[in-house]
């Protein structure tokens, strides 16, 4: 398996753990983590991860702002929104900012698997 970097951005340590556990089952385990939107932007700029998962509701800067700034820095950034129930409006904004796809919490392993395969298959 290639050693691709995956950035997980969520203010909940529980949500980050659940997402990492699911991605590990798909064979990837090189993670970067951020617990708010600003950290996500800074970490992205420093490490340029191949795939980014961003929660919408976060302190300091929310997911929509983070996606905007990450895509401004790198228009090819591959960002997936991890939305919670009840955040439809922000989800729409996140997609308009250039998020490639979204998953809704709590997610199934197969949803994560689909995203990982769509991103890395055929590289």
């Amino acid at each position: 398996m290639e050693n691709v970097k995956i950035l997980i951005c969520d203010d909940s340590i529980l949500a980050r753990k659940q997402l990492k556990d699911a991605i590990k089952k798909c064979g990837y385990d090189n993670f970067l983590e951020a617990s708010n939107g600003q950290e996500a932007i800074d970490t992205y700029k420093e490490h340029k991860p191949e795939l980014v998962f961003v929660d919408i509701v976060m302190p300091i800067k929310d997911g929509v702002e983070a996606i905007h700034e990450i895509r401004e820095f790198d228009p090819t950034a591959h960002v997936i929104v991890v939305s919670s129930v009840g955040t439809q409006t922000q989800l729409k904004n996140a997609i308009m900012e250039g998020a490639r796809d979204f998953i809704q919490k709590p997610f199934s392993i197969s949803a994560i698997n689909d995203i990982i395969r769509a991103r890395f298959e055929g590289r």
Partner: protein
Amino acid sequence: MHTQFFGNFLLNKGVITPEQLIDILKIQSTAHKKLGTLAIHAGYMSASEVEDVFITQTHYDKLFGELAVELGYLTEDQVTELLALQLPNYMLLGQILIDQNIINHTDLENLITEYQSVYEIYDLELIEEQKHMVDKLLADFYLPEDLPHAEYILSYLTLLFNDLVRFIGEDFSTLNIMALPEVPTNFCIYQEVEGSFSFISALDMERETAITFASRYIKEELNEFDEYVTASMEDFLNLHNGLYSVNMSNDHSMELHLQPPMEQEGDLLSTGCPSYLLPIIFSFGTVNFIFSVEKIEE
């Protein structure tokens, strides 16, 4: 759902003490079979299908049976059959009271007759009736008369009871709601929800209680109070408020925005607006639910 109200009814009548109620809830938590368990037992659903319904319940505020039919796992006839196998919860509670020699069969019969006549319960198997009854019980039982926009708060509390049953367990009962200017807290998670209806809601409990609450929510055994416990409480509150904002959007075309959950410990929760405290007694400890309305636009 009925134990929660029948328990409160018995407490208010002085038939049982809070200590006896907690003991009964502990027994009940192991005695009651859920619809999903019954469906697996009957061979109608696989464990993964039941899990799928549970996950779907975190996205839609619907009953287990309702979703199982929509997803094609059960027929309506099968749901009716399984519901008939489920002893109504308040009957189960009554059975435990008799087993514990707290009351006899005649007492139970009289109490149930009174409970049913007060709350107009006729057919517990009907889902619609159940929804109706929860609304009526909440309207008559818990809400202070001066509560502004009671219908929004009523639907919020109905969803809260459903979410507690779905994600934490059925072994709880409630005390009456109290209106307070500010609320002393143990370990408290709160979240602000903004929109034309703005409010702060909070979960508050002792650390020991929080460990069990979190373990049940994430279905994993947690042994100490750590950041996973905090994150689980936040996740529950966030999910519950999220479902509520979906309901408000669907039912009232009202868009609400959730702020990230915050925490505080051993301090007064003071929102500057009247707060309502609802103590919820679980078999493993008391969970205080706090609700504070900041603004309602007409």
